[in-house]
């Protein structure tokens, strides 16, 4: 017996697929664009606060580079943007169709 067969959707939910606009379904907080905006701006504020922390706390550093103002924030941001852009480029070389290996067998 395999265990990976998907369970049927709850009978209560009626048809198997519902769209978010389905008026019977509860509207969640995150379904509203303005709330997604709030999350984004909230994150910006938190980032600002963490940079402000650099002014308030005297950091104990091991390496010289750590002493640069907001080094960790700057490095984290650049690293992640660089990572995603590089991975996007990499996709051009590495991406094959989903059943690439299955074709052979």
């Amino acid at each position: 017996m395999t265990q990976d067969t998907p369970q049927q959707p709850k009978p209560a939910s009626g048809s198997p697929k519902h769209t978010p606009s389905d008026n019977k379904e509860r509207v969640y907080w995150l379904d509203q664009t303005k709330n997604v905006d709030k999350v984004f701006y909230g994150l910006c504020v938190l980032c600002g606060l963490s940079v402000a922390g650099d002014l308030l706390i005297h950091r104990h550093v091991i390496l010289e580079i750590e002493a640069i103002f907001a080094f960790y924030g700057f490095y984290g941001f650049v690293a992640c943007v660089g990572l995603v852009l590089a991975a996007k480029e990499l996709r051009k070389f590495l991406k094959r169709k989903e059943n690439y290996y299955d074709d052979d067998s």
Partner: protein
Amino acid sequence: MTASALAHSVPPGLVMLIGALLIPLFRGHIRSAYMLALPVIGLLQLLLLDSGTHLSVQTLGLQLDLLRVDQLSLVFGYIFHIAAFVSVIYALHVNDATQHVSGLTYAGAATGALFAGDLVTLFVYWELTAVTSVFLIFARRTPSAYRAGMRYLVIQVGSGVLLLTGIILHHIDTGSIAFDHLGLGSPATAIILVAFGIKAAFPLLHNWLQDAYPEATVTGTVFLSAFTTKLAIYALTRGYAGTEILVWIGVTMTAFPIFYAVIENDLRRVLAYSLNNQLGFMVTGIGIGTDMAINGTVAHAFSHILYKALLFMSMGAVLHRVGTIKGSELGGLYKSMPWTAAFCIVGAASISAFPLFSGFISKALIITAAAENGYFISWLILLFASAGVFHHSGIKIPYFAFFAHDSGKRCAEAPWNMLVAMGIAAAFCIGIGVYPAPLYEILPFQVDFAPYTPTHVLTQLQLLLFSALAFAVLIRYGVYPPELRSTNLDVDWLYRRLGPTLIKRVVAWIDHSARLLKEDTKGQLKDFVDGVTRHHGPEGAMARTWPTGATVLWVAILLGAFLIASFYA
């Protein structure tokens, strides 16, 4: 015999290894209770064992150290039993004895390897982990799982064969099979390092992990994620602590899988890539080799097993309920599976090393050790990888599964046993993060490190918040690459595509040449036969049968010629 004496007379791991074989005899709740009891009894045995215990036997002229207990093996032993217990709970709803037997014998074999005091005993358990675990992949019962399982088995058993080769050479060199510090002093120990490196998923030797783990069953992947690779980390810690090349191997491992993780669509495969990245932190710690770094590696293995299992459990629950784990088809599932989403976020926060979660208190040891020992470039890469792991595991996994665009998929929450297993793992993740002292207490060396200083907390928060900001900005402005149905080429291309293609070409060339040769030879043979037939055949000049009359005539002519010649002579 007292409980303590009994505990000291049986190698740990045997309880699960042998006990699991009896699982098919039980049914229903009794089977569940029996399976849960095995890791609990195993853990009780470990708690009774004293550091320094040995149990040896003499056989075939070798002294086998079946039981060697020290702090290093104990810490790994504790976490292996906790992982087995949690994985069993997670799998309780499965009515497939093969998977249960496979999972627990595998956990037992891996535990046995931790307490092997010599390399030959280690080898036996090393191979046992391969043979017992492969059924967790086969049990998916799909053609692609079968093929992935076969590849997994070949590579895992291959690692064992290399290990045995190394052990034999090492024995010839030194006359010893003791499993202590080996170092990179001879070809023998180099071969053993490669054998360990295969199981630890070193760069270029890594791809079995991303190939096989996502193909295993929902519950099988949770077992798999805990044992094989961490057994290799344990073996490297014991044999190769302070081997500098491991720093470079380790930082490479932290960095390159995260590029793949960003573009991978199968979310369990994303987790397999991030598992590889986390192993990189541990290998780096082993390479640095100071007390703090080794403590960091061991602590990180401990917390990693829990949060990685938690992440695989949450993705397994999604696969179980929805029937797919492709990022391109998921989204909005927090509405249907709020508990699973919450547990996934705890796992994500732990792997990302958020303060108050387990990854924070263990990874900090390794990164601080790198900085303090002057590994500047390595430190920069580790920091990059820390930001990257948050990016792809911490955010991408929960985001694409549970949030992002609503896929419209609605399903039931995960079964109760899955939720309980995730709940226990999540409690450990938070517990270790909030109160790390008990974990620090059992590490191999005295810990002289305070994770919760204002500097640590602030720098880590800054790194993570800005990584999150980068993700948010890239998503908001449509720069983030969408999840696409695809296969990304990795090292496995060499043996899944290039190798077979080359072999096919060579076979075709040989076949073609043989045919040419055959035709050419056939032609020459025909010419020869024709020639012979022409000259010697029934019509050939050389084989013509001459009439008697002609012969008489020729004799008469010869005699005549002879007569005339004799007249003149």
